Every structure is written in structure tokens, then in C-alpha cells.
């Protein structure tokens, strides 16, 4: 029975090839654009997720407050309000895993005849853990290096390439502000951050060394910023609250006085970036879905025309014993075949388009089995939904009226 009906549906589709092809084209474009747009949207989400994961997760940055001198106010980080002791106190709070005071700035690096301007980060060992930064060669510096202000450095890939070319940087000496530093470790690559800055263009040195030899400091133990990592996203609000209370108490701020520090939530920034791309990909999918809808309406339109044209045929079929459900199934099957055939072609087109986009641009593309499956299921649903009304109209015809139809 099903086989006979499939054969008939195939014949009916073949009876007006151009019309069937054009109807199918609606579905091809609809499914193709949904698949392509979802691939692009998911690609963007993937790229952002990659970037976020290089920042480190659940991070806060505490920045010292501003100062004002002769009417000029410095920005955040300008005032000497945070200390290493603050950082050590924060590390005692519940829900905090890693705390690293940070002093960073741009400095000229010199190696032999080469020189390169790069970001120099003075910090303590927990910094690498907080940023989830790996060492691909050599080893990191330890607490003893920070205590005794040794002149050792970890170098990022971009800085290394610019100073050493293809040579191995390990064990080489670079100079920063006239002080020689021995490179003891090479950092793993991270790529760009959310602002588009190259995170690999960096050198990490012990905080004490940075303050004494490179940046100078208003007084020993002051820091401009402290990086704080919470144990989990859920723990973050409590950590922020406790940290604020702790720092206000330590800085002896009275009720009503402004904070002399700023707390920035990097996770919030990451979340908003992720949310932006998520919204973008939903929007792309929604726009593409409209074309799928239009394709479905095209099927409905053609099926209605087909039912009208074949009214007499329906009458004949009823006269020789077709039940309503036979006629319904026949037209529904036809609509379904058109939409499924269109979907398969659209799927190929969408995946092809996505691969082409990937090849021609550096846009990230993610084709997930889920999105393909969803597109296919939606297309089949469209076939049934938009095919049902015409099929129902055909099935509800009065046999006598249908037979008289010319």
C-alpha cells in the first residue's frame, strides 16, 4: 500500500517537473539558509567561548582607587590604596581559590640587536592558575623568586617570536629597563582576548622584581591591581560582597564614604559577550526560519492548486473505493516528499555554503548534528503542517461534485 502510494506521489511530482522543482526550491533555500545561519551563529559562539576560556574563569579584578593631585584626577589604579597584604587577606576569604597581585605596564624588551615593546606583568605564581595559563617549555617561577626578587621571566609566544625569531628563547637573557632577566619558561599560546589584544605578546616576571627594577612603586607592598578567582560562578556574588566588606574594613572607610577601590567582574563581561553572540545566532536562525516558512507556504499553495486541478481524479478514486484517509494520505505524502527532497538538497547546500564560507573567510563555522537534525525535523514538520490543509480539502470533497468537475 505504502509502496504504491509512494510510487503515485512520485508520478504526481514528475507530472509537472518545473512546478515541483520551483516548489522544492523554496524548501531548499529555507533549509539551506537555516543550516548556514546556524553554522555561522554557532561558529561565532564557539569563537567567543574559546576567547573567554583563555581569560580564565570566575575572575574578579580589584583595582586601586584614583588619586587627585593639583586638580588632576588619575584613573582607577592610580592611587596607592591596595597592598600585597590586602591580597593576602582576600586569599583567606571563603570561595576564593587564587589571588594574585598584579603590576603591569608596557616596556621595551631588548635581546641583542632586537627590541620589542610588550606588556610586562609583575605578579605571583597563582596568576598562572587564575588565568589557566600553561607553560609549554621550562618551568614557572615560585614564591621564593617573588620573595628574593629574582630576575627571571616567562615569555609569551608573540614576544618570543619577535625577539628570538625561530631560536629557542629558553635560557636566553633579555633586558627590561637595563635589568637582565633569564627566561625560564615559555607560555602556551592563548590568542586574542575579547578586546582583540594579543595575549601572547607578554612577559611575566615576579611582582617584587617588577616593582623594584621595572616600574618602581610609591611604597613597598603597594599594588595597582589584584586578580581574584572564585571557586565557582555560584560563589562569585558572595566573594564580591565579602571582598568589599573586607577591603572597606582594612582601609578604615567609614559608613557613607566611597570605596577607594574598584571591583570588576570579568565573568560578567564574558557572559555579556557570550550573550551577545547567542542573541546574534538566534536572530540569524529566526531570519532564516522566515524563509523556511515562506517555503512551506509555497508548498501549501502548490498543493492547493494541485487539489483543484485533480478534483476529477479525486472523484474517480473515491468512486472506486478510496476512503477519506486514503486521499488525505496521498496528498500529505506528496507534500512531505517535496519538503523532504527540498530539505535534503537544502541541507547539502547549507553545509556546502558553510564550508565555502569557512574556506573563503576566517569565520569560524560549526556544523552540529543537532542543527542539521533540527532543520530536517522542522522541514518535515513544515511539509505536514502546510500539506495538511490542502490534503484535508481534497479528502473532504463530495464524490459526486468531484466527479462532475471538469
Amino acid at each position, binding site marked *: 500500500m505504502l509502496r504504491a502510494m509512494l510510487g503515485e506521489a512520485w508520478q504526481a511530482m514528475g507530472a509537472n517537473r518545473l512546478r515541483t522543482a520551483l516548489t522544492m526550491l523554496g524548501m531548499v533555500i529555507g533549509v539551506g539558509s537555516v543550516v548556514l545561519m546556524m553554522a555561522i551563529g554557532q561558529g561565532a559562539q564557539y569563537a567567543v567561548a574559546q576567547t573567554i576560556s583563555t581569560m580564565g574563569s570566575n575572575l574578579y579584578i580589584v583595582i586601586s582607587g584614583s588619586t587627585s593631585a593639583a586638580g588632576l584626577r588619575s584613573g582607577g589604579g592610580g592611587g596607592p590604596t591596595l597592598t600585597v597584604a590586602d591580597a593576602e587577606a582576600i586569599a583567606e576569604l571563603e570561595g576564593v581559590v587564587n589571588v594574585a597581585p598584579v603590576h603591569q605596564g608596557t616596556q621595551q624588551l631588548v635581546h641583542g640587536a632586537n627590541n620589542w615593546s610588550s606588556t610586562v606583568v609583575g605578579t605571583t605564581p597563582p596568576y598562572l592558575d587564575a588565568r589557566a595559563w600553561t607553560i609549554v617549555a621550562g618551568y614557572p617561577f615560585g614564591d621564593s623568586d617573588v620573595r628574593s626578587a629574582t630576575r627571571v621571566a616567562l615569555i609569551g609566544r608573540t614576544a618570543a617570536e619577535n625577539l628570538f625569531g625561530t631560536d629557542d628563547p629558553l635560557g636566553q637573557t633579555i633586558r627590561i629597563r637595563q635589568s637582565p632577566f633569564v627566561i625560564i619558561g615559555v607560555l602556551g599560546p592563548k590568542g586574542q582576548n575579547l578586546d582583540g589584544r594579543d595575549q601572547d605578546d607578554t612577559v611575566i616576571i615576579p611582582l617584587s622584581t617588577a616593582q623594584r627594577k621595572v616600574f618602581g612603586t610609591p611604597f613597598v607592598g603597594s599594588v595597582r591591581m589584584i586578580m581574584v578567582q572564585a571557586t565557582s560562578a555560584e560563589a562569585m556574588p558572595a566573594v564580591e560582597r565579602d571582598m568589599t566588606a573586607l577591603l572597606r574594613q582594612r582601609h578604615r572607610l567609614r559608613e557613607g564614604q566611597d570605596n577607594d577601590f574598584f571591583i570588576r567582574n570579568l565573568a560578567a563581561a564574558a557572559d555579556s559577550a557570550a550573550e551577545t553572540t547567542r542573541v546574534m545566532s538566534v536572530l540569524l536562525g529566526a531570519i532564516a526560519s522566515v524563509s523556511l516558512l515562506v517555503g512551506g507556504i509555497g508548498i501549501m499553495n502548490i498543493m492547493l492548486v494541485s487539489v483543484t486541478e485533480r478534483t476529477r481524479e479525486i472523484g474517480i478514486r473515491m468512486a472506486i*473505493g478510496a476512503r477519506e484517509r486514503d486521499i488525505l494520505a496521498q496528498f500529505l505524502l506528496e507534500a512531505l516528499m517535496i519538503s523532504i527532497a527540498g530539505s535534503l538538497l537544502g541541507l547539502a547546500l547549507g553545509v556546502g555554503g558553510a564550508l565555502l564560507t569557512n574556506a573563503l573567510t576566517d569565520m569560524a563555522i560549526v556544523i552540529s548534528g543537532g542543527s542539521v537534525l533540527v532543520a530536517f525535523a522542522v522541514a518535515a514538520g513544515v511539509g505536514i503542517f502546510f500539506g495538511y490543509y490542502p490534503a484535508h480539502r481534497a479528502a473532504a470533497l463530495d464524490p459526486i461534485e468531484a466527479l462532475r468537475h471538469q
Partner: protein
Amino acid sequence: MSEPVIRVVALGKTYPTAVGDFPALRDVDLTIEAGEFVAIMGPSGSGKSTFMNLLGCLDTPSSGDYFLVGRNVAHLSRDELARLRNRTLGFVFQGFNLLPRMNLEDNVSLPLVYAGIDRRERRRRARSELDRVGLGEYAGSLPSRISGGQQQRVAIARALIHSPSLILADEPTGNLDSQTSEEIMALFGALNRDGITLVLVTHESDIAAHAARQVRFRDGRMVSDQPTPKAPATC
């Protein structure tokens, strides 16, 4: 004696119109026994087409009862009527009504598709019915490739495929020339001799002359019911 194939009692059909109900058929009583060959005659508007639609289970009556092989079908559902049209009746139309995109074998076997019979069996029975009407060699051809007379033979083969109790033919020779008409009537005659009950609507008396019994309609009523005169009007 076995059940009559058709027994209608006080059968009536009215159609609603803008100016009130129009009685297309009034108070018809008729019994047709198995193996009979009946011609239904009458001018257009006499109600004979309405009567045929009721006999063919394409429509349901407004009043009265219709017993098809003993079963009252006056108030059956659409699906039950479809089942009767499929198994118990065979239709032959004036315009042949073959499906143009299907070859003759598929056309003939289509009623079996709706009866849920498998492909091999459909094929076997379609071949044997096509052979019976003398068109076995054209099984794979499309209807447009054969003549009108041949198409009507295919339509008869389709009507026969389910070995129905009754074949209803509505002006089966209306679109055919007189030579071909005679051939088709000869085929009907042969089928009737094989024991098939035939009811035929026509307005041509020389076609009606092939039947054994003639029923006339006028203004929605049955006005006469008599055996065909012994001296047929053959030219």
C-alpha cells in the same frame, strides 16, 4: 431464493435550493435480482442520475431505504460507503474516467490498492481482467495511447476487478460511435451471461434494448418498469 442485489423502498432525495427544497427523486420502489440486466431510461432531469448516484453509494437518500445485497446502506458513514464502492460495486462512466498518468494495469488494479491487497496479487488480477476484455497486450500503455472503445473496456476491467455483485454503467456508450457501442454492449451482454448483475443508464432505446428489463423515470418518479419487448429495435 437468494437475496435481491438491489431493493429500494420509498426512496427519495431532495436538494436544498434558494427557493426551497427541490425533490429530485420521489418515492421509488424497485427490486433487482441477481443476474438481471436492467436499463434505466428517462430524459435529463428525470431523476435517473440521482437514482444512479444513490445506487452507487456516492450519495445518501433523504428518505426511504436502500438494501444492497440485503444490507441497508441508507445511513452509512462515508468510509463505509467507500468500502461498498470498493468491494461490492463496479462503476463504468460515460467519460471512461481512467487516470491519465497511470498505465492500464495500474488503472485496473487501483481498487485493489484501496483494499490493501499486495502488489503481486494486484498484478495477477489486473492481467487476468485485462485479458478478459481483450487488452492484455496493452497492460503497460498509458490510456492516451488507446482508442475510446478500448479505454471503456479498460474501465470495465477495473469495475470487474473485485468480482462485484453489481456493475453500474452511466451512459457507457455516450462518447462512442455506434460500431464501438455495439462492441461494448456485446461485452456487457457476455458479462451478464456470466452471471453479473448489470444496471445501465441510457437515453438511447437501441442501447436499452440489450437489457432484459427497462425502467423509465420522469420528473423524479419511476413511471414504468417492464421487460424489453420481444422484437428488439435493431436496424
